[in-house]
């Protein structure tokens, strides 16, 4: 099975990537100033028993030499144990799994919006190449890409939640809680996808096989959706994969503004508290997801284009 061999090869290449990510996270956290244990007692009056502080440091292995800390972290991480939160005492793996459904829901919905809006806008723009729908959508997408997400989120809350009252302002729960944050998150990706879809489609529609198809008298809709889009889709799928990583990262901002519990807000809190086990656990986790998604994207190339499968 060439496809399996292809995937196997890609899977092996994941290992050095993950090692790199974990080392980088580890090193950066080590350089980050502030003592997480001292922070537990920041603002306390009087003299805090320094023995107890020392005890906690030892418990979390914070006094061990860095390479030793790293090795024991990686060893535990391989078994799915990402350590315990200094601040909350809970297992990091548990905290992430608890926060994950909300974040997946948000990114999933955002990706759906991004794909639907982005691809259809791009196709329409390419069909009307040079005319006003093309110009309007391309200008709109450029404008949207240029606006900071947190600002868009705040404006959306003001307009759609506070004034119009269509959606709740904050929180998580049913679909009504999801629409606003997912749209803010998704439309930004949609803008990027629309621009790429348009140029990719324009390139393809001038290819000879499209002319051939036309000459054979195949209907325009079939030419568009089957012959043109299928050939134009490879770069779009790549971008979608990359966007998923971007979306996961952006949940940090959106989750905080909309007060949605999730992996992003977990990470932000951990950074503010310098809760080292949670930060490195979450970052590593996000990296794994990112790498896996790219693996899946690579696999779909094979499905979409047999040439890539054979080349591997």
């Amino acid at each position, binding site marked *: 099975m060439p496809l399996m061999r292809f995937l196997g090869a890609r899977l092996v290449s994941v290992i050095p990537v993950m090692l790199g990510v974990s080392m980088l996270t580890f090193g950066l956290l080590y350089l980050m100033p502030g003592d997480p244990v001292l922070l537990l007692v920041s603002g306390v009056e*009087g003299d805090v028993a*320094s023995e107890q502080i020392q005890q906690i440091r030892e418990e979390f292995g914070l006094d061990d030499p860095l390479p030793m800390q790293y090795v024991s972290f990686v060893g535990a991480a391989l078994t799915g144990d990402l350590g315990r939160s200094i601040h*909350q005492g809970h297992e990091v793996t548990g905290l992430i799994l608890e926060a994950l459904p909300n974040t997946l829901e948000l990114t999933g919905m955002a990706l759906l919006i991004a794909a639907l809006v982005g691809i259809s806008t791009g196709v329409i723009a390419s069909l009307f190449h040079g005319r006003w729908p093309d110009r309007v959508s391309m200008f709109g997408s450029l404008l949207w890409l240029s606006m900071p997400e947190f600002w868009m989120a705040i404006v959306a809350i*003001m307009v759609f939640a506070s004034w119009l009252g269509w959606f709740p*302002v904050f929180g998580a729960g049913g679909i009504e809680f999801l629409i606003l944050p997912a749209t803010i998150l998704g439309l930004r990706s949609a803008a990027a996808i629309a621009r790429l879809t348009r140029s990719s489609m324009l390139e393809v529609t001038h290819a000879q096989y499209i002319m051939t198809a036309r000459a054979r008298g195949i209907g325009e809709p079939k030419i568009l959706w089957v012959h043109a889009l299928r050939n134009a889709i490879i770069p779009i799928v790549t971008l979608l994969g990359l966007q998923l990583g971007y979306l996961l990262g952006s949940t940090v901002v959106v989750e905080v503004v909309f007060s949605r519990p999730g992996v992003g807000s977990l990470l932000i809190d951990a950074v503010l508290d310098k809760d080292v086990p949670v930060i490195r656990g979450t970052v590593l986790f996000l990296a794994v997801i990112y790498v896996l998604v790219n693996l899946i994207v690579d696999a779909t190339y094979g499905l979409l284009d047999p040439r890539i499968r054979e080349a591997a």
Partner: protein
Amino acid sequence: MRRSMKAVGIGVTLALLAGCGGTEGGGESDAERVDGGEVSIALPTTESFDMNSLDPNVGGNRIYAHTISMTMFDQLVSQEPESGEIMPWIAESWDVSDDGLEYTFQLRDDVTFWDGEPLTAEDVAFTFERVVDPQYMPESAFAAASMSAFESAEAVDDHTVVVRLEQPQAAFLANVARNFLSIVPKHYVEEVGDEGFAEEPMGSGPFTFVEWQRDGHLTVERNPDYAWGPPFTETAGSAPSVERLTFTYVPEDSTRTAALQSGQVNAIMGVPPLSQESFEGNDQFEVVEIQKNGQPGGLTFDTSSPGPAGEVEVRQAISLAIDREALNSAVYDSKHEPAYFLLEERMGDWVNEEARFPDFDPDAAAEVLDEAGWQEGPGGIRSKDGVELSLDATTSTQMQRTMTLIQSQLKDIGIELNVDVVSPAEASAVIQGEDNYDLAWGNPIGWTNGMPDLLYSLYHSRFIPPNGTSNETRTSIPEVDSLLESAVQSLDDEQRREDFDQVQSIVGDYVSYLPLLSFNANIAVASGVHGIMPERRGTYVYFHDVWVSENLQQSWPGN
């Protein structure tokens, strides 16, 4: 501000429809306490999105988590928020031995935990011993600090508990009134363990725990058996009026504001100063103003710094060169108050009126620097013996705008500030670490519940890092040390007042700390939510008296 016209309309219509003369009309019914309804409160957060524990004793110091835990627990004694007077609560009376070392508390005999088990002297002793148990460090540090003089607690009989101290502590009762020392049920904690208790607590308080969903909201419900509220509450002797309270963390200021405006919640704590106007100017909302006690926000100096910050003249010049009114209006829309005393003015008699920090006077500031030999150099920055008058100022992101304005004010008298904006974690690491710093933003501190005893932790040399964490200014003045030691142990208020007055004037002249802004902790509510009462410290809130008008109960979608 008062009440919306629409709401009056509904009230009147309903009264007419009902056709009975029970109430005298819509206008009156709003001022009368009624049962029922729900208050949904959005909380800000300074550090963490989520609270980590509901254990009031050893759960750490999440300010707003304590706001929540105060709905579920009672303390041994209470403290009247305005006067600071210590009043009964679970203890109906107490005796203090002449040497101030032994407190005998008589407990009420009608207090029960939610499961019906009586609250006894055993529970009180258990709570106190638990708080000082080193195994809970460092999360218990805040509670343990309140009990620094504690020696032992013993249940003499079911309703008598004797607490012994190692040395007299004037603020002991005020400390016992702090929410950290909420009485917890011994039988239940032992049954479910500390971790179980932190997730699903049980107390004797006015509201019972319902659920804590990790999606951020926590719900408590009225405890119908409650009849032992603090004597200064309106509902003392009866259960609360409101049916349910829901708390959610909404860290982003604009989101929290929008949540109240849209009606998703009907109360928010930590009103952003720039949104306050919009609530005050709208009769659908009311702003409950809450003043803090303790030491105001300002600049903390490392008085032991080998650089210019260690020089008292430089600190005195800075004290003259900062325009507090300008800070307040430019950054906070004048919603806070300028602070001129080491203690919040609200602390009344404990504030030394004579130890007022000077008014804004840049000319005098320049003179002080001239006399101290700091000559104006090229570029407007002063220098002495080749050393530039340039200081590093550490601040967390929250105070960045304030610090930037201070930077420009100091530039006018030839002092250069290099503002270093860091995370709150890093900021505390700088001022509590072993290394020297120059100056940093100092957050308001309210440890001893409106008692001046916090000055002891702030300015006694034994708490200089790394031995302690709380003398962030590294103030080391033998006279201050001995005054503070005498003050915190004396049981004579006159003597204490004299000692603390002197401390305020010595530390004030030395400018270890420069008070600048007295921050309020305002709460905004939908009109119709009544009875929110701040506790003595001005940080937490009593929800005992909260009630919701009928109008709001009917119009608010959450009900």
